[in-house]
């Protein structure tokens, strides 16, 4: 989703117009997954597939969050560990650990997540923008947030930033 769409959605919620504020149309779908206790999401158009953990071939001379490369049906796909990328402690991979392969601008990348949760709709009324606070470590990769039940928040990743970032 473009930033304009998000701004528009946020503006609608805050607008005095009741009709606009009540607009709860579906803007798209996200796939949600867990890292630790936090739920993250990725818009579904970027997701190619979910595969189970498999042997990852290490590649030398890359940052530690790039775990290596795997073979997905004769395509070589690099693997990024989201935990390490976000500066969280590594945990051993278990049978819930998954690789989600993403495709953005013809670039394929797989990300390792603790477990995959669900696929759900994005409602206009649930979107909220990220705080304008750059002190939070992972803030850069979050495009916007979705409010869920019981005051939970799902952080939607900015795939473009995640895959196209320059080396920090």
């Amino acid at each position: 989703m473009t930033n304009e769409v998000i701004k528009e959605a946020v503006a609608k919620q805050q607008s005095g117009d009741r009709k606009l504020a009540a607009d709860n149309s579906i803007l798209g779908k996200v796939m949600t997954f867990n890292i630790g206790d936090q739920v993250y999401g990725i818009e579904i158009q970027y997701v190619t597939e979910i595969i189970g953990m498999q042997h990852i071939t290490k590649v030398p001379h890359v940052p530690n969050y790039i775990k290596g490369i795997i073979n997905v049906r004769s395509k070589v796909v690099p693997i990024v560990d989201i935990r390490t990328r976000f500066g969280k402690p590594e945990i051993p991979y278990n049978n819930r650990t998954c690789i989600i392969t993403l495709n953005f601008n013809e670039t394929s990348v797989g990300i390792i997540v603790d477990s995959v949760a669900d696929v759900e709709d994005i409602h206009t009324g649930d979107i909220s923008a990220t705080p304008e606070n750059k002190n939070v470590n992972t803030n850069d990769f979050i495009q916007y947030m979705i409010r869920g039940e019981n005051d939970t928040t799902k952080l939607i990743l900015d795939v473009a930033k995640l895959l196209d970032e320059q080396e920090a």
Partner: protein
Amino acid sequence: MAKIEPGMESMLDMYFFETNSLLEQLDEILLRTEQANAFESEDIKEIFRIMHTIKGSSAMMGFENLSVLAHKAEDMFFVIRENPDVITDVSFVYDLVFQVSDSYKTQIEAIQNHENGEYEQMNFDELINKLLKARDQLANEANPNAAPDAKTENAAADASAPAVHTEKGKVTVRVFFEEGCQMENLRAFLLINTIREECSFLEFSPADVETNPETSKEIVDHGFLITFSEEDNKDYILKLIETALNVQSYEVLSGEESAAASSDAPKAELPPEPAKTAATNAPAAPAPAPKTAEEKNQAAVEKAQAAVANAQSGAQKQNLISVNLAKLDALHDIVGEIITTESMVISNPDLEGLELESFNKAARDLKKLTGELQDTVMSIRMVPLAGVFQKMNRIVRDMRKKLGKEVDFVIEGENTEVDKSIVDSLQDPLMHLVRNCMDHGIEENVQDRINAGKPEKGTIKLTAQNASGEVVITVSDDGAGIDPEKIMNKARRMGILTKPENEYSEKEIQNLILLPGFSTNEQVTEFSGRGVGMDVVKANIEKCGGAIIVDSKKGVGTNFIIKIPLTLAIIDGMEITVGDLVFTVPISTIRESFKVESGQIVTDTSGNEMIMIRGVCYPILRMHEKFGIETEVTNLEDGILLLVETDNKSVCIFADRLIGEQQVVVKPFPTYLSRYNIKGEGLSGCTIMGDGSISLIIDTNTLIG
């Protein structure tokens, strides 16, 4: 904006393919004949045929401007064909035809990029006028008394000599076109044009195929009847018919039946060689200076060679089909999966401990076959560089004219094969480089060259060769070379220097020209100097995993060296393990592999390990240290050493153990990883092995360097 006729989209691809290959053929003929500086009648006929086919198919597709343009060019060549000696000033004819060919290419490109069937229609009026003028001029020269003919067809009809033929000795063929191919009448017309050259007598029915679309139905129902003389080369004509576009089948009818058939239908007579009479007039026309006997001989020899070449290319064409690249990619992926699946079946854990004699035999056969399958698929994607190289010929030719520089263009190693996708992405960079050589490289002033002791004529060389798993392409000129002083001045002005000036080596200075926005030519010309060239070249080459190096000497010349990996190339590799990683070392670089005993190791004062083999000392490179891999094998005696060598540099690689020899398919690292310096550190790519796991391919060059 013009619109592509509805219902034609399905045939567009075919049209583009056909027309583009015809245009390439045309360029080739023009370049060849221009060098010989004379049109052979064969060539003229060929050009005439090409124009004619393009005219027909363009009209069929509804591209009127293209059809008219081809028609006018055809008109001009009609005059030339009938009066081969008429051309006194060959060069302007060449320029015209090249212009026609270029206009075609641009218009076709515009159509190819159409959106919802809309495309920009170009105006060729100016060019058409030029062609008309040229034709009239030529016609006047050929026959001052005759008024210039308005139209080829008319001219042909007017000049038609009474056809001399007898009823017997005729061959009639009934041709059927492919079902649903549409426009049968125009296809029939094209077919007639194809065989017309070969026939001294030609009749066909229905006769008004060119103008009357109604005839399509008749052709579908009853077939298209062609009658020609038995004296003609029957087999060849039949072959032409057989191989013509969209022809489904044909049958040769007996003489009587054909007579009956053709008497039913409206009859048309095509004059044998339409304007034989005009041709006989030609000697009366102002003839150019007679050729010397020697020239004639030479021309004859060349003609014979050309004929042989044509025959060969004709034979080859039959064996070629064009395939969508996406299909090949899909095929390639499937083969990869088959091989992975195969090894999953053959080494399935369920089979463990079972005695399976016949299964093992079948498995071996399968393995052999899949291996062959893989090899074949790989080789399909490999195409020679010749096509791209030939296009450079044309660029040199155009620039030679425009810039007035005398240049020899030499091509070597054009048969080197590279993956198709790489060939495509090489075209633009090569074009830029060749242009740069012409524009900046070769000296403006011939006197400068003479003063420098160089031959008056400059040389631009384009070479390709295979070298240790890479294709090396060089574009070199013997021109003025790069002046480091000038580069430095410019760089200083632009403020792109990143370190103190005196720390720049000559090589680094030369490579500054590859930076964005760098162009030293003060004058921006049509060809180069916009400062977008070199960095685009660099970016394009790096996109397909290659590298470019500038190597120039002031006053001597400039070499651009492009190194391209063989993306899908198959290399013979030796698999070695280090920790839990598998590496592939190209066998071509391995001299020997051996176990080592502690006594052979020499350690110098700074702790570098070396080994003495037959009196030569080689450094030892521990792979696990180089790549930071954890392994239990750290004692040199426990592992294995491989002596590898490239470019006269050698090193002993220390690995855990050898697995064995395997043919592997080189795959580039994913683009996501290209921002990290993996390739500079001794790895050239990766490969997927039989069991689906990935092995990293060692690049001996960067590993040592």
